[in-house]
């Protein structure tokens, strides 16, 4: 390990820089341009647009505290009559209590995150850091699958899953994550790992690390920021996913939140507005929470993939 520390000083600091860049809060040094008048105007436009953008969300929060009959009659954002029962009645309005659906969604999200992190990172490690025959071709094939609309492979996959008896289980919704099926994440991680200095790996080899050990103790820890991006994107995609659960799950007990939530719309008609919005907010809170925790990973993540 001492060898690695001695030879690793320069590479490590550049790796640290790279990590800092992806983590990098604001690397932009901002100079404020324009006269006070144009600056004021700019803020006016931005605030105006921001309000228009966020108004639907504020309206929904307000509606979730109004009696159902007031939702479309009481135009004020601050409810004239407050109704806190929407949350409790909405929680138990469907066949199962809300916690069942939240739990299901959480299980799916966690399994997908674990699957994507490990399968995509080890695949990316092979493509980015190891040398073997067919590497370029295999990587190109992975990228090509990104252009494939998922609906083309949907029907045969459905047939296979149903023949395997996987309908009404979480297997079709989670197993693909363990098979590095998300080419976008593989690509993101390859790009990131390529930026790590090769000397690190050489130093690890000299110290007797095999490729697997190098992956686990050298590359993976340095890839944390990119893995955070993958985890957050996976969480949001899995939490919002509506189509796959719709396809593969029919048993209420297994429903994730989006499938459950939709029933407010089809079954209840117009009467249950308050509870519906209350539960909509419950369904959005985890995503919004993750957004605030992991904002910089998200923003840096999509910014990097868009660049080259």
């Amino acid at each position, binding site marked *: 390990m001492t060898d690695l520390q001695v030879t690793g000083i320069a590479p490590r600091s550049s790796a640290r820089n790279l990590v800092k860049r992806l983590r990098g809060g604001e690397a932009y040094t901002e100079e404020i341009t324009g006269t006070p008048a144009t600056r004021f105007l700019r803020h006016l436009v931005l605030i105006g647009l921001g309000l228009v953008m966020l108004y639907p969300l504020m309206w929904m929060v307000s509606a979730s505290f109004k009696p159902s009959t007031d939702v479309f009659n009481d135009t004020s954002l601050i409810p004239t009559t407050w109704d806190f029962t929407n949350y409790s009645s909405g929680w138990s309005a469907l066949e199962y209590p809300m916690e069942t659906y939240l739990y299901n969604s959480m299980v799916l999200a966690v399994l997908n995150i674990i699957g994507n992190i490990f399968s995509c990172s080890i695949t990316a490690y092979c493509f980015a850091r190891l040398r073997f025959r067919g590497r370029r071709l295999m990587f190109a094939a992975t990228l090509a699958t990104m252009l494939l609309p998922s609906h*083309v492979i949907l029907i045969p996959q459905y047939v296979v899953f149903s023949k395997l008896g996987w309908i009404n289980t979480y297997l079709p919704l989670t197993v693909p994550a363990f098979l590095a099926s998300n080419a976008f994440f593989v690509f993101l991680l390859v790009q990131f790992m390529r930026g790590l200095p090769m000397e690190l790996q050489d130093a690890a080899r*000299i110290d007797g690390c095999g490729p697997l050990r190098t992956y686990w103790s050298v590359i993976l820890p340095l890839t944390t920021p990119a893995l955070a991006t993958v985890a957050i994107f996976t969480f949001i995609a899995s939490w919002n996913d509506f189509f796959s659960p719709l396809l593969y799950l029919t048993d209420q007990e297994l429903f994730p939140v989006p499938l459950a939530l939709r029933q407010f719309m089809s079954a209840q008609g117009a009467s249950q507005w308050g509870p519906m919005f209350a539960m909509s907010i419950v369904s959005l809170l985890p995503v919004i929470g993750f*957004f605030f925790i992991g904002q910089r990973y998200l923003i840096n993540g999509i910014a990097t993939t868009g660049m080259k």
Partner: protein
Amino acid sequence: MTAATTDQGVGARPRRVRERGDRIAYVLLIPWFIGMLFTVIPFAVSLYLAFTDYDLLTSPSWIGLENFQHFVSDPKAATAARVTLTYTFVAVPISLAVALGIALLLNRGVRGLRFYRSAFYLPSLIGASVAIVMLWRSIFGYAGVVNQFLAIFGIEGPGWTTDPDWALMTLVTLSVWGFGAAMVIFLAGLRQIPRMYYEAASVDGATPVRQFFAITLPLLSPVLFFNLVLGLIGSLQTFTQAYVFSGGTGGPADSTLFFNLYLYQQGFQRFDMGYASALAWVMFLVIAAFTAINFLVSKYWVFYDD
């Protein structure tokens, strides 16, 4: 694997180790390989199914081009194609224009950049969620907020969700609401343009408008291209919004019958898997054609700096 390093000695260049190849990669790539099989084989199988009559219960029977002949004369498929293309050609340009406009405003150096960026970015993460689509239906409902707002100006708003002429436009507004993802990418692209170009241009007396067309737009064109390709592919595959908005029917009067929704109805409600596969292949070819055209045309307007 470690044997190689020990008999080379510590002083030898480790490059030789690399040249020997890391056979272990083939083992580590086993999950990836299974995943690829799970993509490539279904891809081929769906092409086969497109030429068959298949209901999932009995085995598929070859019917030649019948599914495609049916597609050409199927008025609902034509509607679905029209709805999807209209939506794409309206929603993508508007979203990109708004995203670029706001990115430009934010790039001028604004106090509170982080706050604005978050406020504009957040909607794009939740725009396709069931909760937001239901919310959209409500605020655009006949007695919804939007019409209440229009009423202030004495305008009687249409039945956004019930009038076939307006339902699709309601979904377009939802798509534009999610412009934030493209905006963040634009913003990152704008940061890469060296400031000195603008300084040089203003010394030469170029107006901001001139600077935009002579510096910003050409240097941002790769990013614009990226956003355009992603936007088109995403829009053509819209499903959740249409499904939740119309309760799975594509109504009112098929005005939100997106192609994917129609595919779903054919495949998973009527279990006409053969026809659904044919539809999927038509969509695949259309998306491939759009992407190819995009790449071909890009030669004429996308400018790579390096």
